[in-house]
């Protein structure tokens, strides 16, 4: 039987290629994402071991505040430590280092680097030193208060050459420098797409941080001590009051690699999740192809049975075939995946996120897991069709045509409905108070039920969806409609991947629409001003606090107020603290204070959101111990509770940090103009004030609100992008099924051509069949997706999401897209159908 299996595989290369295609796609996404994240990981590992190659010791503060998203804010250390360290025996040189927010303004007045979620924009120190992170590739090291050096990529993007004047914005304001040198980091033009403005230590400290303060000290030894001994010696030499620690070069390298690694691992998990979804969708395609090929081989299998092959042998033959297909498909998929990740890297390079060359990392793990997963998925998908093939009665050899028996089984009906009802019941329990963690099970049950019922639903729904085609496309439409309904099992299996993809897309879209709607409502109600200046640099850098002060001096402005964010430690946990300026915020932004006014917020006070107050079970008068980035813990008395926690859970007075080393930026400035102020003049005045800083966008109230809800679009875009993998597989699934159907209907096509069907009519028939199948998946997917979205929105009601919004527009777009997908998938099969040789088709028996 093994030989029969092999002969069977080789005898039908087309079928082999089609079956493998589904496996190839699924595994290539898996391998591609895996290779890509490994490569990214190693790239950064190498980069940082390169960067700290000549750093023997690394001195920094032990005082650190970790925020709730893994970011940390470490206290700074004073300059005098550098001299202290230099005196330690075994130290050959030590330099202070700063890494802080700085934005380079391009020649066109626009800041360089990407906004928001993109790579950060840094200011740092560059000076001649054995362990220096930077090397100067052109020009000279920055030496004086007017000198700046830029990383190569930024210089190129900003079209700056040595000698140019460069404007840089930092926490202390904006300033113009002379470009004296171009620097490179390790062997890349700029690390990970970040931009760097580099200064001598004094300037860096004064301009980027606070005068006399640095982030860390880089030390290089004279070789008389081992790194560990050197670090110990330095540590011993620094008095305890400075609260510092000394790491070896190896330790800081490992730590940085770890940090990057965990940041990347989130990305890796995201990629992996969606490639597994894609692989799951691929299972349907593989299963479908095996089922169809089993049906097409019914006579052949029946003949084998008639001449004495056992059921088991028939089944085994098909399983052997599936192993071959799985193995070949996975291997090709692996190779394709490596190519895919090379493409992704090239794409990143094209958008200027420079990854050091080092080749792709194809780990043994990737190779083994890709092939094993591919093989398992293929064989599992083939088991049912193989068993069904074994059940073929020998008499089927005498039957004229191979047709799948598609009686809508009572068992199927019961299983499907039971699964859906159970799923809905589980969701119902969650709605009425059970834990959200059961939601997944409920949703899964509904999905499974729908897919089980698929073959039963497929025929009536396909006939319904095909009505317009039959109505308006004449006999070709009639035939397309009948063809899409003639084999409901096959149609529903083809539509299932579309269903899953569309359901996920719809659910995500519905969720996004609900979030956007909520943002609209909230900001419209809370923001009482007319203009806002916004920046995307949330959490890292932002607008200078002096901007709001400048704006308040304008004659057209009634009030301008800035919101800042600080990372602080409250009760030992990292938190965001929102800072407001009480004298200007009143009347511009309403946070919904309960029995309190902004005037109650003195520098020794804190406001809590109602939710937080309830959770902590404290109220007005309580004292909250808050540790700031300067390492000082300040007792703040709760003087007010507010309802609208969209701006954060803790609010403090911005003057609290005046005169302290704590660095604070405003993330937004909100402006209320004077009644009767001329609109054009106001805009001109505001624009001029903003332009002075080279940072931040002036937006009208509506623009600002749109921008807030627009942020959801970025996330939406990413998820859509990842779901594309599944969509591609569904399209390929439709193509494969159509092709197999076309092969199967050769005689019918030959007959139709003989009695006068033109090639373009043949194409129309295949095209509409494809569209109907695709729409079948889309319609069911949209129904499920809307339900899923509604359930998710409900589950998120604790997170403040209150109203579900039906994404009407996007739903229509999805339908139109599915229509186009149908048309697109039909192109090749339709062309193949027109190539059917009439005589050969008529003569085949």
């Amino acid at each position, binding site marked *: 039987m093994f030989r029969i299996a092999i002969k069977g595989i080789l005898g039908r290369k087309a079928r082999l290629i089609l079956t493998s295609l589904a496996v190839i796609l699924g595994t290539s996404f898996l391998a591609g994402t895996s290779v890509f994240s490994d490569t990214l990981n190693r790239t950064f590992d190498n980069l940082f071991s390169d960067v700290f190659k000549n750093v023997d010791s690394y001195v920094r503060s032990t005082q650190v505040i970790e925020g709730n998203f893994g970011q940390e804010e470490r206290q700074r250390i004073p300059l005098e430590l550098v001299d202290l360290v230099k005196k330690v025996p075994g130290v050959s040189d030590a330099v202070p280092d700063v890494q802080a927010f700085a934005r380079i303004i391009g020649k066109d007045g626009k800041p360089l680097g990407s906004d928001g979620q993109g790579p950060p924009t840094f200011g740092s120190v560059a000076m001649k030193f054995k362990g220096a992170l930077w090397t100067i590739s052109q020009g000279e090291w920055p030496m004086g208060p007017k000198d700046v050096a830029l990383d190569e990529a930024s210089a190129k993007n900003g079209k700056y050459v040595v000698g140019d004047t460069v404007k840089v914005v930092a926490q202390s304001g904006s300033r113009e420098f002379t470009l004296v040198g171009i620097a490179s980091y390790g062997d890349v033009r700029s690390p990970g797409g970040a931009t760097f403005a580099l200064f001598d230590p004094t300037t860096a400290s004064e301009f980027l941080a606070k005068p006399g303060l640095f982030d860390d000290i880089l030390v290089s030894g004279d070789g008389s001590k081992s790194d560990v001994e050197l670090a110990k010696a330095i540590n011993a030499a620094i008095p305890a009051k400075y609260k510092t620690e000394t790491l070896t070069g190896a330790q800081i390298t490992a730590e940085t690699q770890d940090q990057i690694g965990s940041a990347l691992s989130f990305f890796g998990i995201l990629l992996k999740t969606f490639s597994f979804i894609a692989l799951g969708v691929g299972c349907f395609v593989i299963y479908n192809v095996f089922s169809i090929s089993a049906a097409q081989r019914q006579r052949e299998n029946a003949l084998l049975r008639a001449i004495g092959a056992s059921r088991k042998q028939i089944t085994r033959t098909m399983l052997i075939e599936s192993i071959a297909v799985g193995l070949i498909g996975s291997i090709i998929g692996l190779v394709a995946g490596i190519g895919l990740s090379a493409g992704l890297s090239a794409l990143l390079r094209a958008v200027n996120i420079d990854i050091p060359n080092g080749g792709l990392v194809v780990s043994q793990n990737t190779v083994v897991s890709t092939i094993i997963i591919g093989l398992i998925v293929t064989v599992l998908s083939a088991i049912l069709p193989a068993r069904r093939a074994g059940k073929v009665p020998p008499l089927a050899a005498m039957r004229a045509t191979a047709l799948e028996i598609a009686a809508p089984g009572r068992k199927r009906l019961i299983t499907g409905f039971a699964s859906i009802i159970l799923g809905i019941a589980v969701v119902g329990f969650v709605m009425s108070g059970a834990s959200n963690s059961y939601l997944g099970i409920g949703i899964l049950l509904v999905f499974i039920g729908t897919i089980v019922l698929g073959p039963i639903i497929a025929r009536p729904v396909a006939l319904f969806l095909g009505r317009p085609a039959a109505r308006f496309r004449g006999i070709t439409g009639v035939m397309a409609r009948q063809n899409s309904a*003639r084999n409901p099992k096959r149609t529903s299996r083809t539509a299932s991947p579309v269903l899953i993809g569309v359901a996920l897309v719809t659910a995500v879209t519905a969720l996004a629409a609900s979030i956007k709607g909520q943002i609209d409502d909230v900001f419209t109600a809370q923001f009482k001003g007319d203009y806002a200046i916004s920046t995307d640099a949330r959490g890292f850098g932002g607008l200078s606090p002096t901007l709001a002060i400048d704006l308040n001096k304008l004659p057209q402005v009634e009030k301008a107020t800035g919101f800042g964010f600080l990372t602080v430690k409250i009760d030992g946990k990292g938190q965001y603290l929102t800072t407001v300026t009480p004298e200007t915020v009143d009347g511009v932004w309403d946070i919904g204070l309960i029995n309190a006014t902004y005037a109650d917020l003195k520098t020794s006070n804190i406001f809590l959101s109602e939710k937080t107050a309830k959770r902590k079970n404290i109220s007005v008068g309580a004292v909250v111990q808050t540790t700031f980035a300067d390492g000082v813990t300040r007792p703040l008395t709760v003087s007010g509770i507010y309802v609208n926690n969209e701006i954060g859970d803790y609010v403090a007075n911005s003057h609290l940090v005046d005169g302290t080393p704590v660095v604070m930026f405003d993330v937004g400035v909100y402006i209320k103009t004077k009644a009767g102020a001329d609109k054009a003049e106001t805009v001109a005045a505001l624009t001029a004030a903003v332009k002075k800083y080279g940072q931040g966008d002036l937006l009208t109230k509506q623009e600002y609100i749109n921008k807030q809800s627009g942020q959801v679009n970025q996330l939406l875009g990413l998820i859509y992008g990842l779901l594309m993998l599944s969509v591609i597989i569904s399209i390929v699934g439709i193509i494969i099924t159509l092709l197999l159907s076309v092969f199967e209907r050769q*005689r*019918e096509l030959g007959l*139709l051509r003989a009695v006068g069907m033109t090639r373009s009519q043949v194409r129309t028939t295949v095209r509409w069949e494809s569209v109907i199948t695709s729409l079948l998946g889309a319609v069911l997917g949209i129904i499920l997706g809307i339900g899923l979205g509604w359930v998710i929105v409900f589950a998120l009601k604790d997170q403040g999401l209150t109203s579900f919004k039906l994404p009407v527009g996007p739903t229509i777009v999805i339908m139109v897209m599915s229509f186009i997908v149908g048309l697109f998938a039909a192109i090749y099969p339709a062309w193949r159908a027109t190539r059917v040789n009439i005589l050969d088709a008529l003569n085949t028996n």
Partner: protein
Amino acid sequence: MTPQTSTIAASAISATKVYGSGEDAVYALRDVSVDFYEGQFTAIMGPSGSGKSTLMHCIAGLDELSSGSAIIDGTDLSTMKDKELTELRREKIGFVFQSFNLVPTLTANENIRLPLMLGNNKGDEAWIQKVIGTVHLQDRLTHRPSELSGGQQQRVAVARALASQPRIIFADEPTGNLDSITGAEILTFMRKAVDDLGQTIVMVTHDPVAAAYADRIIFLADGHVVNEMTEPTAARVLDLMKSLGN
């Protein structure tokens, strides 16, 4: 009957069909010239490999001649593009094949009207009803092919061939898959179509009994026309076939 005075519905002029080239060349048809007259039931007979099916396929626009011409209704098929040929088959030719004549997803009624519908043509309703009546299919119209017997399926095929009132109908072993009683029934219908409805039929067969329903028989062997017989009977056909060494 004096065929020479009748109108020619279709003809082959020096029709030659070669497969392969050089020494490997296989001749399916060698210089065959034959006319088919309107209102006549012509049978083409010959042993397997004699070229009878090839001749029919080439005249019917399903296959191309290597040289010579096939003419239907005055038009040389070799000058026509695929689309024109398709339209010609749809409008001027009717087909009845040995098996797999019907589209399984369409009802008997839709199958009968298929060529008309493909051409967006309503057809002559009175004529279609008459055809359906002639083949006794009135109460089977809503059935799909899988619900019809073999004989009924062939009757639908005959009705389809007749429905568009083509210039000529080609039938390729129409009774080859039927038992003799059902076969006789189909042949009677075809005979009636010629006698009562004035149709032109060309039928390829190797069955002397079937051929005896025709007005005229053309005998082919090795790609040549070797004989011709008018007003045949089964016995005469058998005798002739014996004399041709079959």
